[in-house]
């Protein structure tokens, strides 16, 4: 190699390497952010599950389910579940998901305080869907969906898209987080992540076998029903089955604007 070519390459490397490392660092930051959003989302679902008695009980004070109280409770679940501090609220995605959680609970306020209704239908899956639906109206380029493989999906609006279907096919036997920094969604450049979720005991109350159905507790086996509390037929899943996952997409164009 001629000395001139060598020096040209050195100069080129001097410019390219910092850009490369910067991109990598940005990428890592984005991964961390998406992981945090996923964990916040999961913590809220877990809180909703744990508080079914509070949600469905009549004639009691439910202020723990609203506003900043609700967020503080989610934070506590997060710390307990993941053994780490709740993320800083210095990114719009974190701020926005917490705001939307407050809005969703407020949307349900009239139902939650309706003392003539027992089961309110606010369960982890419906809460997660309400969050997703509300977030989609905000026009901020952040989308979250709790989805699963096409068969047995209960809410048509949670059906996986092609990207999610392909990802699930890849990881279903060996669940791992799938990250795609160069994806397209509705013609827009996005970063996408699919985080598989382990089946939790609370999922089985609706999706498990009749023996998992809380409606069957204390009844003779012959009187058991395979219809869960929400009115759907139970899927007979077990704790070892694939639990679906959280699919998150963030539009690249808004990433820098909204930091």
């Amino acid at each position, binding site marked *: 190699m001629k000395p001139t070519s060598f020096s040209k390459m050195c100069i080129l490397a001097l410019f390219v390497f910092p850009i490369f490392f910067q991109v990598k660092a940005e990428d890592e930051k984005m991964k961390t952010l998406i992981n945090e959003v996923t964990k916040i989302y999961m913590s809220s679902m877990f809180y909703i599950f744990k508080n079914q008695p509070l949600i469905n009980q009549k004639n009691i004070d439910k202020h723990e389910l609203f506003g900043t109280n609700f967020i503080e409770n989610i934070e506590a679940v997060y710390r307990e579940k993941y053994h780490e501090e709740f993320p800083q609220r210095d990114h719009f995605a974190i701020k926005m998901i917490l705001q939307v959680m407050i809005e969703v609970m407020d949307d349900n306020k009239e139902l939650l305080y309706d003392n003539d209704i027992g089961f309110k239908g606010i369960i982890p899956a419906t809460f997660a869907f309400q969050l997703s639906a509300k977030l989609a109206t905000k026009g901020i380029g952040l989308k979250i969906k709790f989805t699963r493989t096409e068969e047995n999906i209960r809410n048509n609006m949670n059906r996986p898209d092609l990207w999610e279907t392909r990802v699930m096919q890849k990881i279903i036997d060996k669940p791992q987080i799938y990250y795609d920094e160069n994806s397209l969604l509705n013609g827009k450049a996005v970063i996408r992540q699919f985080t598989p979720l382990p089946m939790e005991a609370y999922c089985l109350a609706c999706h498990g076998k009749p023996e998992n159905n809380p409606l069957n507790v204390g009844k003779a086996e012959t009187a058991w029903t395979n219809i869960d509390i*929400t009115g759907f037929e139970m899927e007979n899943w077990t704790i070892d089955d694939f639990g679906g996952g959280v699919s998150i997409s963030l539009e690249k164009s808004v990433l820098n604007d909204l930091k």
Partner: protein
Amino acid sequence: MFNKVNIVININCLLILCLFTFSASSQTLRVGLIDFPPHLSFDGELKKSPLYQYVNKILDSLNYTVEYVKLPNERAYLELTKGQLDLLLPISIPVNKGEINTPFTPIFHSVPGLCFKKENFIPILSATHRFDELTIGIPAASSPVTALTNSKAKLIPIKGENATSRGIELTQRGRFDAFYHPSPIKVYHRNSPLYKEVACSYFHGYSTPMHIAVANKLSKTTTDRIHKAFETAMQKHSYEFYFASRK
């Protein structure tokens, strides 16, 4: 000599600036309001309605003299298109109302749903198999969501101006199993007399954006000024978050 000319120019500039400020601050805006409880309620004191409070705070900060006019739905559209109003809220963009100018981000979203007699309440409407055999009243003027039209429910259109109240009445009397409402929150909230009678659940994912409409006659400068103020306020705290966070 040169100094005197300079002083005269400066005084003139100051006068023009004062005149401009005065004209901006003294401009009167006529804002039409449509009843949309609990966001905007004509039953109680208007000043206590959260949407009024949010909008008024923004317009107030711009130093406009604001005249609020309570209007029924149809007349409100008419007055806006005739140029009798400067702003109108909250409205969804109707398909048959010609060109309505809605340049701002939607102020909130309305979600349709079904209202039931409490004992027949279905909380999760994605469970569409539960609509089989149900008779559901639908205001003829509204377009029900596909989750409902694709279900096996028997859908009965209700014609007339007061279709909503008739639908609810027929549901209460057991003639319908449920009633489709484009915005059940209007009836299913704790200040509504119907709160004790019916319970409503929502078709989440089928929301309709609700806007602030701007009259075409409003100058571009004024529209831009209001637009900027609204976008700034919405970015800080959206109306939906303000509504959810109120005590």
